[in-house]
């Protein structure tokens, strides 16, 4: 019996090793940043709040992306859904707002208008998710293609939409002024390519630190219940793990996919509304650009398998936190750019690392991998050394660049030579007996 319990507790640790590992990694990175950077020590509360707010904004749609990944699909559209939702939300607010005459500040919007704007954005996302599900389950497009089309198409649609909304708004204003007998000297100005959303109450949504966090926490609980406690959740894992077997086990796979893509789009839309509120405008050009990969990266770093069927809500949450902590740390420690500049690089690096780590863990016990074989390996050594040197040069100094590049180059070359020598030297097994 004791061995059974032992193996049970070991399997518990084994099951949550990903989460435990991430927790340790987050602590280490945060501690390191605190040690190295005075900003963390001087304003700990403010930094923590900012970190949580940023993480929550990413986390909200990362959870949706993770759900789609667990169900065996992929949603590449979230960045554009974020932009499009912001446009929908602010359009509704603009067009339902009472027209303000003259230059006096616009009146605060009524709660009904705010609710209509947010619900409208969510409803549009529901339609987007439904379209994805139709393309995937009925037309049988690969999820990659269906959502990639949305990624490109929705942003473009938003960009065409915004000037039209502004024109309509100008027309409304002009009509109201005419009715009031005021002449408009402003009508000749160029049509703006972004929509403004100044309303003070709306602005609070995304910029008060605890509101995104509260939404994120509610979503975490709901998603955790859904995935690990309900029939639907179990079926989603089954669908992601083995779609054919799921269908043959009497699971309505098409409905589940619909649910997954709708949740994926609606969480992105929620994040879109919050972003729009944070920056007080909907800019279809830049809003949410590249975020689809951030979400997928958080899911993957959090332990989701891109093959589907594997992943947990706590893992994804920790993945989001880890991603954000690292981005923050890099931005604080290296003054070469802003957090946004570093984000893509970190996301790329961590995704490669996470997936490679998973692959290596799975092939553990199999053959030992030679990392730099032949000409491919030789070139890769040069690439890695060059990349390290470039990064060091950009973030520290040119001299550090040469040093770091040289060290990496020398280290890898020596490792390769040693490995070669060991491989070619006769093994004791082949001696004749």
């Amino acid at each position, binding site marked *: 019996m004791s061995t059974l319990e032992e193996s049970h507790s070991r399997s518990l640790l084994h099951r949550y090793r990903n989460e435990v590992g991430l927790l340790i990694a987050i602590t280490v990175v945060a501690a390191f940043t605190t040690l190295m950077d005075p900003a963390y020590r001087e304003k700990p509360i403010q930094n923590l709040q900012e970190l949580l707010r940023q993480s929550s904004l990413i986390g909200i749609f990362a959870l949706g992306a993770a759900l789609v990944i667990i169900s065996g699909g992929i949603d590449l559209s979230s960045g554009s859904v974020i932009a499009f939702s912001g446009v929908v939300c602010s359009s509704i607010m603009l067009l339902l707002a009472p027209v303000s005459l003259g230059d006096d500040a616009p009146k605060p919007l009524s709660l009904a208008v705010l609710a209509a704007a947010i619900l409208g954005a969510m409803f549009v996302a529901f339609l987007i998710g439904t379209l994805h599900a139709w393309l995937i389950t009925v037309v049988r497009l690969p999820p990659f293609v269906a959502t990639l089309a949305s990624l490109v198409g929705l942003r473009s649609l938003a960009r065409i939409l915004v000037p039209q909304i502004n024109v309509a708004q100008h027309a409304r204003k002009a009509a109201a002024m005419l009715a009031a007998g005021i002449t408009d000297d402003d009508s000749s100005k160029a049509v703006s390519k972004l929509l403004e959303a100044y309303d003070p109450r709306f602005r609070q949504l995304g910029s008060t630190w605890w509101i995104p966090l509260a939404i994120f926490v509610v979503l975490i609980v709901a998603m955790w219940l859904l995935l690990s406690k309900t029939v639907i959740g179990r079926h989603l894992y089954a669908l992601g793990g083995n779609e054919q077997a799921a269908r043959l086990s009497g699971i309505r796979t098409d409905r589940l996919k619909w649910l997954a893509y709708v949740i994926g789009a609606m969480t992105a839309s929620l994040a879109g509304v919050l972003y729009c509120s944070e920056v007080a405008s909907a800019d279809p050009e830049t809003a949410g650009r590249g975020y689809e990969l951030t979400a997928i990266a958080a899911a993957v770093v959090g332990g989701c398998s891109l093959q589907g069927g594997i992943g947990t809500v706590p893992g994804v949450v920790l993945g989001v936190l880890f991603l954000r902590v690292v981005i923050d740390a890099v931005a604080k420690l290296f003054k070469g750019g802003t957090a946004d500049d570093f984000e893509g690089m970190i996301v790329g690096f961590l995704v490669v690392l996470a997936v490679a780590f998973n692959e290596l863990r799975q092939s*553990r016990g199999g053959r030992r991998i030679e990392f730099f074989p032949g000409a491919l390996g030789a070139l890769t050594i040069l690439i890695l050394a060059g990349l390290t040197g470039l990064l060091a040069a950009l973030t520290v100094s040119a001299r550090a660049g040469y040093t770091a590049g040289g060290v990496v180059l020398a280290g890898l070359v020596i490792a390769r030579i040693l490995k070669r020598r060991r491989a070619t030297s006769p093994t004791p097994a082949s001696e004749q007996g």
Partner: protein
Amino acid sequence: MEAPAPVTSATSGAAPLIAVDRVTKRYPGVIALNDVSLNILPGELHAICGENGAGKSTLMKILAGVIPDYEGEIRLRGAALRFGDTRAAEAAGVAIIHQELNLVEELSAAANIFLGRELTTAWGLLDERGMNARARELLLSLECDVAPQARAGSLRVGDQQLIEIAKALSFDTDILIMDEPTSALTETEVARLFRVIARLRARGVTILYISHKMDEVFQLADRVTVLRDGKWVSTLERTATNAREITHLMVGREIEATQFTEPRRPGEVVLEVNRLSLAWPGHAKAWRLRDVSFQLRRGEVLGFAGLMGAGRTELLECLFGASQVPPQGRIVLSGHEVNFFQPVEAMKAGVAMVTEDRKRLGLFAQFDVGQNVSICTLDRVASGGMISAAAEERMARASVARLGVKTAGLSAAITSLSGGNQQKTIIARWLLTEPKVLLLDDPTRGIDVGAKAELYRVIDGLCREGLGVIVTSSELPELLTLCDRILVLCEGRLTGEFTRDEATEQKIMEAATQREVGGRKSEVGSGSHSGGN
């Protein structure tokens, strides 16, 4: 305790072609091969027997360079060597035909044969003509008359296997490893394969033959090595042993031939199928199934025999609502006409199906045993959509116990179970849906002897509890053991019906190959009618 006799006295004079010396292969938590030593003599056909998990395939993969890291030593013609990959093994003249074939389906037969060693012209371009000619020659020498240009994926399994053999021959293989080569073949294809093997042996090719089918082993082998739980048990001359002894060595216990002497008493008709047809869109033959009619009673086991491609799987898929296109005809289940578009509808109406390809269509590898059992009936242990963990466990435990699944527990990984127990897990899953009709598509495929007998008893027990059972199998003795009635399919048509007393392998094979004997005329007729071909 068998007396160790690695090399028998009669042949000890010849130097071994391959010497396996104290080879051990460890995986995390498992020792797949434990200190195995074994000699293979030049020119012999050496059968390797053992239950699933005995280490047969691991040993063969080491010999063929698929697994490069292991402990111990392999000597080929006296020289120690270690293959880093299959190419190195091929260069040394060792080739392996895997149980699951390794063809690129989209490439032609010839392209597959020369894959990785393509012939080129003086200009460095592919020499298609040369490869096709050489491929044709190789295939003909193997009694295989498929066109070298034919797409590999479009061929029958038997022909695909011969392409793999042709590939092995194309690089002067003198040691050929065959891993359960007959597991997916029909009897005619098996006969052809055996003729090919005889021809290879006449050329002096040494063959390592993995199988757990005793009749094959005793028909082909010179010597037989038995492995059990990763350990070498015994190597015997075929002439000095018998099937009973080998089976005994494989399982470590005696297995009696299963016989269900007590007659079953079939009840009322539970399923009636009337002129069922299934179209085959985009295919030269317009129908996968044509006018199939039969009845199934409660408490009856009905068997479907037929060659590969006869439509057995498609028939079961129609009954389960899982066919690619909806079938035509009438299906009456307990007096009500039914028309299933999705498996979920069939499941709710009381039809259960255990699919042929366990790994691909049945198991959820990432789920544990309990979750694999409960997946179809979670609604029953959930309230308001929330699963009660305790109720789920109770339900799964009861079903696992009913079928006698051997597992370390409900939370054990499904992949840690043997093939037979995985199959029982899937049956346990379906029994929870309380089906009236149980469809079993080749339920013992890839399952070892001991587990088969157990599965037969399970099926017999379920039948006596009042289930109507339909079984298909590619092994006729299995159907003869299990079934009350056997129906025979040939190219989608019903060509024979036999009761248990009438049925013999001979009669069934005649019905299953009617196309080749009497069906010529109708074949020509349907061919002209479908046009093109």
